Structure formats: structure tokens, C-alpha cells
């Protein structure tokens, strides 16, 4: 009957009028929000309307063809004006209704339409679809029956049968059948007045059979509707339970996302001698990337970037633990390799057997005029020296942190001068695939860094890199968490 989709509230207009084209509200693929918000009665009504829509279209085709036949017959036999007009209406009304139904059919929402002129009518019908349907079936009955009183007997029997194919409430069916019966009664009077038959014969031969037929059809329709309602509500309740679970998960993921975002540093560092900025774009609600910076004693700043293999809630939890470890070890970040070894011990003792975490620590020491880096399997840090303008990858081949891994961390020191840029990033940046699958790569990343203005702001550099990655990935999206941290040495 359908599937649950995870669209957020407001993504898809529930009334169908917000998209520019009047549409019946869909119910075959309810969103989580619709499942949790819609009442059962409203859902059932929408489902019935959606089911009735194609049936009504086919009925309209049949009515229109019948109307054309009657119109031709009336014209050929030179019948009165009332009959000709009635015949015209018997195909004009269903033809118009057919076009309106096409216009409001949600399954045709993506297709172009040349029927925009019908929008005012279509909007009214979509807004009160059930009323419009009942009115249409009543009017069509009148146009078929009354212009030809003496020859409309078959329609009195045939038309009520149409309602077998339509799913409407028992009350609505009773109203329609009552209307048909009332028409039968009036027809009896008119037929008698026209002298077609003696009144008793008419009553016996037309009204009573019509009464019996309408009652039987109504009862049959009521039973079919009852079964339909029971089946739909069972399906809907099951779907709603699952939707509530999904909504709860979604809310928890959203909370986890907010918590994780709150772990990332707020603002930037702009301490006169150094500026640092970073951006992380998670691929899912909870990403596996992390970055942070720590002000240390003596004009020293440590910048870290990390990445848990994979992304999602598990990665977020691992990163959360790692961050706690880093906060506890922050005073020791003056020895990056020692911190990495302690974190490796923590991961080995505590984390899942099969997890990997890459982490890079860059210590910027103003007094010594050098940057010290240590890495655990993290992609090489980029450095653009102000003196040459060239971008180099700082050597950092090492194993990641992992419960099953053993390795040692080494520190590498490079000179640091005003104007130098350092860029830390995660694999989501250089592995972002283009439309043909080719990764963004280190070369393009280095070119973006190399082409930055000498006075570039770290925030602008982060944005430029991520913008280039997004442009490279195109509509397919980056696919993995992508993080960039840029450091500019000012003095």
C-alpha cells in the first residue's frame, strides 16, 4: 500500500496547493509527519478519494461517450431543445470532470499540463473533492434522466449500480441513493402525468424495483466500505506505529547532531599572531569528523582534526569519547606524539575491535617559530609557505588509532613564518567523487590552497575548499563527512 518516507514537515505540502498546481493530497506514500499528525478519519478519507479518482475518470469517459450517443440521437430524431441540451450536458459535464480529475491527480504532478485554465475549478474540486464527487454523480443522473422522462427507465436502475465502484461513507451513499429514489419518485409522477402508463403500473414496475435495487446497492456498498475501512485502518495503524518509532529515532538523531555540533569549536581563533577557522559538513545527521583547537601556555595553539571510519551514530559516539580524552589531555598537547599514544591506548582498551580513527595534531609554537605535527593515519597536512607560495604535504605516514593496531607516533617539526598557511582536512575532501567517479584528489586540493590570496582569511579558505569540492561532486553530493581546518600565521 505504500512506504514510509522520512521527509520533514513542510517539505511536501499536505494540501497540494503549495506546489503551484492544485492536487489532491497524496496518501499512498505518507511522510512520517503525516502519519503521526493525520487523524484516522482524515487518512481514510484521503485514501478513499485517491482510490476513487481513477474510477471516476473511467466512469466519466463512459458517461461522456454515452452523452455523445444520446446527443447524436436527439439531434438526428429532431427532439426538443430540452432534450438536446440535456444530451449536450451529459457529455460536457463528464468531459469537464475528467479533465479536472487529470489536473488534480497527484500521480501526474510531475508531468506538464496544458490545462492551467482549469485551475480555479480544479482548486475548488481538490479542496472539496468528496462534495464535488457527490454533486457530479447527482447532476449527471439528472441530466440523463429528466430530459427524456419516458425513456429514462434503464438509467434509474443502472445509475445506482455505479456507486458499487465508489468508496464513500455510508451516510454519503445514503444521501445519493436517497436522491436517486426521490428522482425515481418524481419520475413516476411525471411519467404518470405524461400518460405513459397507469400510476399503479409505474409504481409497481419502476419505483419499487428502484427502491429494492438502491437498498441492496447501498447495503452492499456499506459492507464493502466497512471492509475497506477495516483493512485500511489496520494498515494505517501499523504504519503509524513504525512512523512513531522512526520519528523518535529522527528526533534522537537530531539531538545527537546538535550535541555533536556543540562539540565543535564555536567561532574562530584570532589572537593577533594566529587565526584559525574550521568547517565540518556531516554526510548524515551525525558525522564521523571532528576538529578542535586548544590555546596552550606560552603563545602555543594546538589544532586537531579527526575522522572515524564510517559515519553515523556509532562514529559520533566514538568521537565523543575521543574528544573527552583530548580535553583531559589538552595540557599535554605540547607533545603531540605522546598524546596520540595515550589516545591509542584508550582506544585499544575501550573501543570496538574493528574501529579506526585517524587523528592529526598540529602544534603551533610562536616562540620557537615552528609547527610540530603528529599524525595517526590522518591525511597529510598541507602547508603553504609565505616565502615561496608553494604548497607541500607535510610527511605524516602513520597508522590510525585502532583497537587491533599497534604503532608508534612520531613528531615532525617544520619552520613557521608569518603568512604561512596550514590546512588540515579529512578524506571526505579529497575522496569526493565527481560525476564520473574520479576523486577530487590532493592535486586539486593543493591548487585551491595555492591559488588563495596571500592575505586570505582562514574562514574564506575553508569555504573556498568546500565550495570547490561541492562543485566537483555536483548533484551527487560529497557523500562522506568533509572537514577543513585552516590556520594562518599572522606574526
Amino acid at each position: 500500500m505504500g512506504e514510509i518516507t522520512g521527509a520533514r514537515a513542510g517539505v511536501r505540502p499536505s494540501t497540494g496547493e503549495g506546489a503551484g498546481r492544485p492536487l489532491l493530497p497524496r496518501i499512498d506514500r505518507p511522510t512520517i509527519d503525516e502519519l503521526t499528525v493525520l487523524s484516522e478519519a482524515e487518512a481514510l478519507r484521503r485514501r478513499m478519494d485517491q482510490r476513487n479518482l481513477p474510477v471516476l475518470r473511467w466512469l466519466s469517459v463512459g458517461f461522456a461517450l454515452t452523452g455523445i450517443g444520446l446527443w447524436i440521437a436527439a439531434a438526428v430524431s429532431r427532439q426538443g431543445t430540452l432534450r438536446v441540451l440535456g444530451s449536450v450536458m451529459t457529455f460536457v459535464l463528464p468531459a469537464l470532470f475528467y479533465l479536472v480529475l487529470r489536473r488534480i491527480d497527484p500521480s501526474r504532478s510531475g508531468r506538464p499540463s496544458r490545462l492551467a485554465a482549469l485551475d480555479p475549478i480544479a482548486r475548488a474540486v481538490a479542496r472539496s473533492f468528496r462534495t464535488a464527487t457527490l454533486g457530479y454523480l447527482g447532476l449527471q443522473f439528472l441530466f440523463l434522466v429528466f430530459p427524456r422522462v419516458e425513456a429514462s427507465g434503464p438509467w434509474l436502475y443502472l445509475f445506482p449500480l455505479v456507486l458499487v465502484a465508489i468508496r464513500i461513507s455510508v451516510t454519503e451513499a445514503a444521501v445519493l441513493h436517497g436522491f436517486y429514489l426521490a428522482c425515481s419518485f418524481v419520475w413516476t409522477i411525471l411519467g404518470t402525468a405524461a400518460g405513459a402508463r397507469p400510476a399503479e403500473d409505474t409504481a409497481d414496475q419502476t419505483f419499487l424495483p428502484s427502491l429494492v435495487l438502491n437498498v441492496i446497492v447501498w447495503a452492499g456498498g456499506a459492507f464493502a466500505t466497512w471492509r475497506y475501512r477495516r483493512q485500511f485502518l489496520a494498515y494505517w495503524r501499523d504504519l503509524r506505529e513504525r512512523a512513531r518509532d522512526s520519528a523518535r529515532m529522527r528526533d534522537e538523531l537530531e539531538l545527537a547532531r546538535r550535541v555533536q555540533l556543540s562539540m565543535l569549536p564555536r567561532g574562530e581563533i584570532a589572537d593577533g599572531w594566529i587565526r584559525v577557522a574550521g568547517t565540518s559538513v556531516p554526510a548524515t545527521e551525525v558525522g564521523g569528523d571532528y576538529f578542535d583547537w586548544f590555546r596552550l601556555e606560552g603563545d602555543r595553539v594546538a589544532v586537531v582534526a579527526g575522522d572515524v571510519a564510517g559515519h553515523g551514530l556509532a562514529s559520533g559516539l566514538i568521537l565523543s569519547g575521543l574528544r573527552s580524552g583530548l580535553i583531559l589531555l589538552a595540557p599535554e598537547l605540547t607533545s603531540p606524539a605522546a598524546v596520540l599514544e595515550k589516545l591509542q591506548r584508550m582506544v585499544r582498551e575501550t573501543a570496538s575491535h574493528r574501529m579506526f580513527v585517524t587523528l592529526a595534531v598540529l602544534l603551533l609554537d610562536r616562540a620557537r617559530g615552528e609547527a610540530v605535527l603528529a599524525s595517526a593515519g590522518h591525511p597529510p597536512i598541507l602547508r603553504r609557505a609565505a616565502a615561496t607560495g608553494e604548497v607541500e604535504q607535510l610527511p605524516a605516514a602513520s597508522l590510525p588509532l585502532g583497537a587491533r593496531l599497534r604503532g608508534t607516533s612520531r613528531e615532525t617539526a617544520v619552520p613557521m613564518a608569518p603568512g604561512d598557511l596550514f590546512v588540515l582536512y579529512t578524506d571526505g575532501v579529497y575522496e569526493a567523487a565527481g560525476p564520473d567517479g574520479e576523486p577530487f584528489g590532493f592535486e586539486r586540493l593543493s591548487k585551491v590552497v595555492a591559488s588563495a590570496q596571500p592575505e586570505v582569511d582562514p574562514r574564506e579558505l575553508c569555504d573556498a575548499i568546500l565550495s570547490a569540492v561541492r562543485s566537483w561532486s555536483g548533484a551527487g553530493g560529497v557523500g562522506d563527512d568533509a572537514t577543513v581546518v585552516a590556520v594562518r600565521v599572522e606574526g
Partner: protein
Amino acid sequence: MRASGRFGIVALALLLAAVPSAPPAAASPDGALPPVVFVVRHAEKSTPANEPPVPLSPAGSQRAERLAALLKDAGVASVWATDTVRARDTAAPLARERGLDVRVYPVRDASGQVSAAPLIDALRKDGGAAALVVGHSNTVPKILAALGVANPPDIPDGEYDNLFVVSTGSTGGAVAIRLRY
């Protein structure tokens, strides 16, 4: 205390309390894959030819030395290479460092098709804490897939710096990470 701080400490506590720790260099049970498998393509070769006797170029030899330096403390207990000079020479520095022999594995199965199955069988029989496998651009993705890595990447012809660290699983799935060396 900020919510994130509480969340972090709770997560840390969960990690400490709920996840059983594993001995880092425990030998795998009989018939199981080594817990960690390092997979690389052979280093740069001296000529474009693909014949088995083609040796490594000087750059390739340097890369092999870097691989040995990177993995010397990683607990590698067995070193595997195909029966080509370039693959064996890529594996040799680490094997020498660890006092191991380079063991040759077939790249084709009984039907003559290129397959990782013979290597996987050999790894299962051998076990050990960690293994290094040296392959080729057309066999590394197959090896990764056979180890349980989902969607292993293709190795472009000009790339020699990929090091895949695979953490194998008893149920077939594996976690892998790609490093550059």
C-alpha cells in the same frame, strides 16, 4: 557543564564499560582470518611491462622501505606476495625487519581465473595477529572484497601509494581504511 560535555563523558563511560577490550595482538582462532590485514599494491616498477621478472624502480624500492618503517611495529606475523619480483621486493623490507619469509600466494584459482580465494584460504590456515598482502592493481580490489570490504575502490594504474588497513570480522563484514604512504 555543557550538554556536549555530559554527552562526551557518558559516551566515554559507555565505551569504557560496555565494550569488551581485546588483546591487541591475540592470535586468531583456527580458521579465522587475521584480525588485521594490510593490503598494498606493489610499489613502482622499473619498466611499464607486466612480466613477473620486472623489478622495482628506485622510487619503488624507497616506497617499500617506507612501508616497512610504517608497519614494523604493527605486529605483522606473515607477509604475502604474488610470484612476481616487484611484489616480493615490495614485501621484502618488512619481512626482513620482522624476521619473516615472504610467502608466495597464487593469484588464480583452480579454474585459472584471477581470484583472491587461494589467498584467503592461506590466510585462514595461517591465522596470526596481522598480515601484509602485496598484490596488483587488478587483484587488490578482489582481495579487499574477499576480506569483506564493501565497495572496494579501483586502483588507477599510476597509483602505488595506497595502503588499505582491513579489520576483518567473523561474520564476513570488514572495516577498512585507506591510507597513503
